[in-house]
């Protein structure tokens, strides 16, 4: 038997290849179901709202406006959900920690601070790109600060990263609190409402810019998928496997920071999606990021759209902040899924 030379030395024929990266046919079926859920949710989203159940009358002006609003919400939900969930997936892979998500590393906190500042101070002049860009700049700054705190010579450990992330995150939220408490009534209301998380459609220009950012970042991360698979074995192993681990780590951290920042600037502080959806998708599709990243994107989007639809209808005409629904409705559901399939999601 020869190891380095070719030849048919294998004990088994063509029928029994080692299955690399999970039984693909199974995953394909599951992916199809997930993709099929999107138009369904689109329809559901168009029919649900505080103004009543059913398609709005498109003949009337108000009906068209309501439909517009509902479709805008669908669009926002898909984008924000996809961004948060993909970002969480990548953070978990890079930090090799099941608790990692944009919030834990302070990235969301930084983005939130940036967004709050630009809402309160910047206001009019920053325009469509301004909000996501300010959020991104602040998120990036936070990430750098977190890294600098954690870095005590050499490569910072995951634990010190998370610890300093939590600290910086807390500082960011207290600064936001301070800003809110000193703001005028109107500004305070805007920021608080935004912080609770809501998917009120932004301007089309802003949505378009966000769409571009989010799509580009998700595709970019998807391209890193095989590298992320290797990276889950640790940076050192990745190096031995011929990966430029530093480059991959930094690029994917940047891309997922961009995702988180854009999501926060669009929808505020929506929790839960970035943490739990990746775990559920991992338990369904396995840990291969070539499946996991698109699945997380679609799954996160679908989950948020569903939660938003519930948020709009449950107590109509009063709208519940979507961040409340994600945790309240999603928690128990995902708990059931994870309890059944925990061993495929994460093992430590």
């Amino acid at each position: 038997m020869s190891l380095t030379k070719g030849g048919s030395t294998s004990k088994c024929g063509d029928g029994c290849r080692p299955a690399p990266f999970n039984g693909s046919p199974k995953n394909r079926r599951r992916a199809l179901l997930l993709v099929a859920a999107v138009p369904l949710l689109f329809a559901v989203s168009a029919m649900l709202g505080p103004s009543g159940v059913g398609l709005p009358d498109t003949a009337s002006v108000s009906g068209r406006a309501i439909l517009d609003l509902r479709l805008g919400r669908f669009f926002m939900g898909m984008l924000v959900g996809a961004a948060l969930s993909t970002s969480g997936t990548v953070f978990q892979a890079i930090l090799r920690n099941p608790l990692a998500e944009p919030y834990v590393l302070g990235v969301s906190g930084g983005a939130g601070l940036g967004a709050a500042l630009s809402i309160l101070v910047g206001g009019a002049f920053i325009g469509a790109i301004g909000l996501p860009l300010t959020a991104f700049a602040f998120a990036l700054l936070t990430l750098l600060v977190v890294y600098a705190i954690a870095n005590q010579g050499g490569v910072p450990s995951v634990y010190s990263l998370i610890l300093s992330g939590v600290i910086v995150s807390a500082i960011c939220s207290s600064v936001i609190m301070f800003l809110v408490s000193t703001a005028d009534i109107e500004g305070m209301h805007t920021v608080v409402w935004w912080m609770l998380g809501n998917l009120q459609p932004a301007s089309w220009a802003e949505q378009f810019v966000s769409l571009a950012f989010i799509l580009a970042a998700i595709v970019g991360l998807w391209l890193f998928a095989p590298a992320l698979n290797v990276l889950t074995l640790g940076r050192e192993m990745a190096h031995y496997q011929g990966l430029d681990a530093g480059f991959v780590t930094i690029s994917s951290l940047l891309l997922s920071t961009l995702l988180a920042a854009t999501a926060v600037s669009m929808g505020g502080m929506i929790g839960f999606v970035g943490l739990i959806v990746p775990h559920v998708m991992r338990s369904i599709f396995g840990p291969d990021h070539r499946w996991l990243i698109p699945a997380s994107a679609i799954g996160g989007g679908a989950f948020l759209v569903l939660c938003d639809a519930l948020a709009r209808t449950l107590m109509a005409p009063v709208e519940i902040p979507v961040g409340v629904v994600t945790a309240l409705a999603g928690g128990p559901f995902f708990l059931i899924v994870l309890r059944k399939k925990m061993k495929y999601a994460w093992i430590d």
Partner: protein
Amino acid sequence: MPGSTDRLKPALAFRGVTAGYKGRTVLREVDFEIAEGEFVSLIGPNGSGKSTMLKTATGLVKPLEGRVELFGREVSSLKPRERASLIGVVPQKLESPMAFTVAEIVMIGRSVRGRWGGPDAADHDSAERAMIYTNVLDLKDRLFNQLSAGEQQRTALAMALAQEPRIIMLDESIAHLDINHSQEVLRILMNINREEKITVLLVSHDLNLAAQIADRLMLIDKGRLVRNGSPGEVMEEELLRRVYDCDLRVRRDPFSGNPVVSGVLDAALRRPPVRKRLHVISGGGSGIELFRRLLIEGFDLSAGVLNRLDSDSEAARALDIPAVLEQPFSPVGGEALSQARRMVEAADGVVAGLVPFGPGNLVNLDLAELALKAGKPVWLAAGIASRDYTPGKAAAAKARELCDGGAVEWSNIHELMAQVEQTWPQPKTQQ
């Protein structure tokens, strides 16, 4: 690419390498070459720089001074993928927090080839060969995390093999495996080294294992390469004592001839001295356990007459027990006997082990008689008749005579210890 020219170049060469981490130099002026196809083991105490050397060899740690060459090319000049196709690393413990199967982990070794899409036929073949080689093919659909440590380590080895590297380095990868699994991994390593001509660098803190398997040992101490040579050259008692800063002994394994090092822990285990000297009559390995137990109980010992090269005489030497030695396979001569008599006269008692008696060593029983006559206690292992190869069963007769004269028979070591304890009660340890 296996080129024809770089075949002549060493697989791995350190040329005056000084390396370390931020503000801490670990390796100092390290110089060595490993030829392609060699099996080399890097040994040294904890914290001596073994792992740093491995990281420097793979380019993970950049040398501050000097050059590290892989097949004649400077490591830092290699593209990551080129480097990974030359050198594979099996870590101390591969950890995959996510639920990858064995096949998936092994296939990660193929990511050296750097395609985004699914693996092709060549990847499958290579991964499969690696799994067959390491005997994990049956486990391919199992989750890596649910495997035993040995199976995980074989999977990690399979992953490194799937890279199809020309040199494999193992970072104390077998240190935490039990003997069965570590032997299995070692067997695989020897196979890939011999059959596939893959160069192996095994980092190990297990000196005996390293000496057992490697063609060459490199001993590193405080970041410096202090000895580089055959196991016999490196496993030198004085050198190892200095490097490991502890009392140890190097013997030759009677079966393989390999040098074997053992720590001298016995001293710490011993009871407070009872200030009694026992003379032990043994031979052929029957004395080893006696020596050990009696030393632990706090006795001073002497031994003999033993033949040189007898395993008891080796044990006596290792344990610093004064012993009278006779030439191998020779009957005990007058001079040795008179020496042994003097020892028995100095002793407080005599213990005879489960030694077979023949014409050559029958006189040893005279030593027991001598002690008995001097009123000293004598313990004889029971059943001498079955070990008696003297003409006319002289030893059994002598034993009966001794027992009549007051010698006590013992049938197992616990019994012996109880009898000895009865004669000389242990001094009570201070509360």
